[in-house]
């Protein structure tokens, strides 16, 4: 059966979208819908085999707006529900939609273990550094000092960096994109969809109601070139509107150098598929005030996915013991017969 040729509209649900006007989620939805036809083409996948599973929060309304299968579940648990689904149904392309509260506060545990197991799901974490649906409390990614309704004197909590956590969880695909950079986001979504195992994508997304401008200083069209670092596998980490600066390591720590003072061939070349996650971690930990903010794929390594390993065990067991037969199995071992007197 040849795969249908899909268009963007095939993925647009009839449901009215109910995010606040101006919300960054619209842009993400639109890019996901736009890139779906290409993903289906690449993976020879039909629309009915695509599922979006979400938790709770503004971003978790996402599945209602996709004309695919969807499951809007409970707070923080989407990665676990998606794990159960994907293990039983490896024929499906399963996406997880989560946010900084859903994925990094109430559901951190599941996210960590989903990544560690390399479950074949594609996780999009919408990071707006605020709690939106509960109307504006600080989130685990809110900056220290953030004044919100629940932190009127400023948050006293150290924020967590989503990509650092993903890397520490042994994730095999770790990337960051901005909702405002559609082209880059689409590329990353496509790569995530085609990755073997868990793909974790942090999407910087503006909440214009409770945390407006959170990423403005490095994601707007005006600032992006100068304040973002677009990672290219196999290339040095050069950035700037004039591509005149770069990141390198000195004594194990990152520093910014000017290209006119430092020959390009001596720069550190970025390698997304390095076995050791050290370089990716250095990048994920860069101070966003002092350094450009890296965008793109931080890490992409190949490792068997959870479903593949489980199915391998099933195949091995069948090969070794034969396909299980219920009554034969029940009656094997220490049994005895009672005969009619």
């Amino acid at each position, binding site marked *: 059966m040849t795969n249908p040729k899909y268009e963007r509209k095939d993925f647009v649900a009839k449901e009215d979208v109910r995010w606040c006007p101006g919300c960054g989620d619209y842009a993400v939805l639109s890019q996901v819908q736009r890139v779906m036809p290409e993903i289906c083409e690449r993976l020879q996948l039909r629309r009915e085999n695509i599922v979006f599973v979400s938790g709770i929060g503004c971003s978790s309304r996402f599945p209602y707006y996709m004309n695919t299968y969807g499951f809007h579940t409970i707070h923080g648990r989407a990665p676990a529900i998606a794990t159960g689904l994907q293990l039983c149904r490896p024929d499906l392309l399963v996406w997880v939609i989560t946010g900084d509260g859903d994925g990094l506060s109430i559901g951190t545990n599941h996210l960590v273990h989903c990544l560690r197991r390399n479950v074949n799901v594609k996780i999009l974490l919408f990071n707006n550094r605020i709690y939106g649906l509960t109307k504006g409390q600080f989130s685990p990614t809110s900056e220290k000092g953030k004044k919100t309704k629940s932190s009127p004197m400023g948050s006293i909590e150290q924020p967590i960096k989503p990509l650092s956590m993903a890397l520490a969880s042994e994730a095999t695909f770790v990337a960051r994109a901005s909702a405002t950079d559609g082209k880059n986001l689409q590329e990353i979504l496509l790569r995530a969809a085609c990755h073997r195992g868990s793909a974790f994508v942090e999407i910087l997304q503006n909440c214009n109601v409770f945390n407006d401008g959170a990423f403005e200083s490095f994601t707007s069209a005006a600032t992006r070139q100068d304040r973002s670092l677009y990672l290219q596998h196999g290339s040095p980490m050069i950035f700037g509107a004039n591509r005149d600066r770069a990141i390198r390591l000195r004594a194990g720590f990152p520093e910014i150098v000017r290209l006119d003072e430092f020959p390009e061939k001596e720069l550190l070349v970025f390698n997304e598929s390095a076995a050791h996650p050290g370089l990716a971690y250095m990048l994920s930990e860069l101070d966003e005030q002092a350094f450009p903010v890296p965008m793109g794929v931080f890490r992409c390594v190949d490792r068997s996915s959870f479903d593949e390993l489980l199915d391998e065990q099933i195949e091995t067991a069948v090969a070794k013991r034969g396909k299980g037969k219920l009554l034969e199995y029940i009656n094997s071992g220490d049994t005895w017969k*009672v005969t009619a007197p």
Partner: protein
Amino acid sequence: MASHRESPEKPGKTRQFKEMDHAIVRFAGDSGDGIQLTGSLFTHDSAVLGHDVSTLPEYPAEIRAPAGTRAGVSSFQLNFSSAEIHTPGDRPHMLLALNPAALAVHLADLMPGGTIVLDDDAFDTAGLGKAGFSGTDPRDDGTLAGYQVYRVPITSLTLEAVRPLGLDKKQASLCKNMFMLGLVAWIYDRSAVSVEKQIDSLLERKTTQPAMLEKYREQARANKLAFRAGYNYADTVEVFVCRYAVGKAKLLPGTYRRVTGNEATALGFLAASVISQRSLLYASYPITPASDILHELSRYRHFGVRTVQAEDEIAAIAMAIGAAYGGCLGLTGTSGPGVALKTEAVGLAVMAELPVVIVNVQRGGPSTGLPTKTEQSDLLQAIYGRNGECPVAVLAAHSPAHCFEMAIEAFRIAIRYMTPVFLLSDGSIANGTEPWRTPEESELPAIDLPQGLPAGDYQVYARDPGTLARQWVAPGTPGLEHCLGGLEKQDISGKVSHDSANHQRMVRLRMEKIQGIAKDIPELTVFGPAQGDLLVLGWGGTFGAIHHAVERAQRRGLSVAASQLDYLNPFPANLGKVLRSYRQVLIPELNAGQLRMLIRAQFLIDAAGLNKITGQPFRTSEIELEILRLLGVQGGGRQDPLPPNEEVHGAIGA
């Protein structure tokens, strides 16, 4: 009733043989002494010989509690019988104690005039001290007066027996449980050869690693030497004046095996998967006493069974829900504290109307409670323990083998009604064993699966008029793409709805759907007269003790019936009628009166409770005494003095 006959082992020597219709033996020792293994071997031998058997294993919550202390005592009670039995028995006829602590802990339970076999070597000053006997020795201070006591130097005889193998002292003394087994096997007239075969097959099954095989063979050799030494000791040394013989039970013809409740539960879920031809995903977080279900199902890979040791209890049910959403059998298992964590997710499965089964192997609560003890205190948690009006079906298994059919039944109902189903088991069922007549192909129940796909414009919450279930449509089905979720949904269409009238309608529909299951489950049956003076109503693992107590009361000519609820939500349709057919209703429970509260609330019947919350199962005598009390019969002819009753009449809802 004693009779004399020739001993089969020693022609010419006259031995006294006592015939018994049943015998209750309790093995006790330190938790490192291999008591569970010993009990299990003897049980198997009993079952193979054709006795009906029932067991009660007990072990400390600590993996290695301090050796020799009362806290570290592990025990295993076996009741084997020539008639059908349903309980491990109240008071053992014989207690085998491998150390003073074991004697201290279990002596009070021994039947008056019962037999004690103890390891005399273990009663040194250190052993007595650890067991809390300071300055006294129970062997000669009158503590054991009235019992038949056999003091056997088990440790030293064991060391002597295995000496040819050259084991170190520690390894060698580990065989003393087998010496003890040898004594018991002789006392109960068993064939030494058949027990030895058991020892061989058990140890060889223990490992699949060739490197370990030789070590296990050596262990088996040592164990058999010790066993045979114990057997021969009993036979030769004319200390044991009496052997006991128990006849075969009249069991239904068929193939039998011994199962624990947890094994039967796992096999039942496997059967549900095979019957429905839907693959099974079991996700679970290790917890006592449910972990063995995970261990067991993890061995079924060749059936395509998928198991996941989840990161936590919530993840476990979440994975099961994911599997159910994917059209497969989603299953999770835990004990009470785990259920507490899963409750929000159960609510999601109720709202999304997905078939998920949750097995709760109940233990003592609240909080961490008594992990290795049994209780029935999670009934209300299963029925009501969620936010919102959130009805689910609740079933209970009443014995180890019964877990098999109830596990299948749980999935039958879950799928037919598109609902989460709780299956309640408990610690004593989970670890207890009984002979199980395995089913023939034709005896396996059917599981109806949805036929065909919805026609026309797909309405996610359109319902079958008979069952009120919505249709199970999994991803991958072309043209029926839809989104489920935990938000309230519009009746029929399944779109998100905040409409107030719709919410009330949906709440009612979900309730009616669950109540409607009553049309689809067997009516409640009673054991005994269809009407009379007293109905003893139970649920779950109290079945055996209730049945036995009622049987005994009936033999006194009392008008008493017993009935066990396997279905707790909804109740069987005829329950009200059954309740009203008796002048009084007694509800024994291992909790503070949870079923009793439900019965009172729903049927306005002033049921009496008998409530025990000690972490121990009921004794037959405890229930029997309460029956006599309620019927105004003085407890004449009662054999056992009763321990203090943990009654809490009226603690709930009264």
